[in-house]
């Protein structure tokens, strides 16, 4: 499945390899890189509205976003630590919030779902 696209990408890489010696080629790659950086960031930002319905709460979810960004992007901690620390805490906290809301719903079967 990956063979044809692999060949295309490698061919592009080889083509760029020749271009990368020139100042214009290096600049073009830098420009592409900057656009790609913006594109990936936008992919993340497009997911932010979905966090509104996070069981841990909207503000808490945004705090986890910021903490992850700071730990991985700025402090450059190894990903294993971040997932073990922040990831585990976020999942456990979500689990407790889900448990609480499930129990509340079970206690008041008449109440309409929020």
């Amino acid at each position, binding site marked *: 499945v*990956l063979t*044809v*696209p*692999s060949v*295309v*990408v*490698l061919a*592009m*890489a080889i083509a*760029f*390899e020749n271009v*990368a010696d020139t100042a*214009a*080629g290096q*600049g*073009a*790659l*830098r*420009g*592409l*890189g*900057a*656009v*790609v*950086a*913006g*594109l*990936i*960031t*936008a*992919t*993340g*930002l*497009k*997911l932010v509205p979905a*966090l509104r319905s*996070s*069981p*841990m709460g909207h503000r808490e*979810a*945004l705090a*986890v*976003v910021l903490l*992850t*960004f700071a730990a*991985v*992007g*700025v402090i*450059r901690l*190894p*990903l294993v630590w971040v*997932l073990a620390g*922040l*990831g585990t805490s*976020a*999942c*456990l906290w*979500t*689990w407790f919030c*889900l448990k609480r809301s499930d129990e509340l719903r079970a206690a008041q079967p008449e109440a309409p779902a929020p």
Partner: protein
Amino acid sequence: VNVALTGSDWLTLFVQFLLLSCLSVGGAITLVPEMHRILVESHGWLTNEQFVASMAIAQAAPGPNILFVALMGWNVGLNAGGGLANGLAGWMTAFAGALVTMAGMLIPSTTLTYFATRWAHRNRELRAVRALKQGLAPIVVGLLVATGWVLVRGDADSAVNPSTVAVALISMLIVWRTNIHLLWLLGAGALLGAMGMV
């Protein structure tokens, strides 16, 4: 750039990508900051420019974006084997690099992830599964934004280039707020860069 890679370095490269693959909570793209840490900062197997170029070319090319993993390996192989100018040995080493990183990335995710995804889907009503999915959602967002930042930040010891950040921010806003075709943006970025403005 020339880098000497010993046999144990190749093994390290493979094992690192194997382990990384198991940490991909939101797809391979969320692993980019960690790959930069390993390939550029810890081992110096790639320059920052080569790392960014690998991402740029793979995203601009048609086909699955996961191929940036192959390109990173390809570039490590180029550095280790003296480049394509070195003839057959250079080509083979570059191919070996692409193969090593892709195999490391795909072996766990095609087996473990397959079963994990099926199990999670069958038990999607389970509170633990819901907690796992929804708890990791903000982490994935943070990792995506961190990926963007790592790509524009440049070398750790040099100052951040304001025009690179500006181009990235404008592209981010355009992608976020409009439905413009990505190729226009990529083309504009490459053009601005070629004119020396990024």
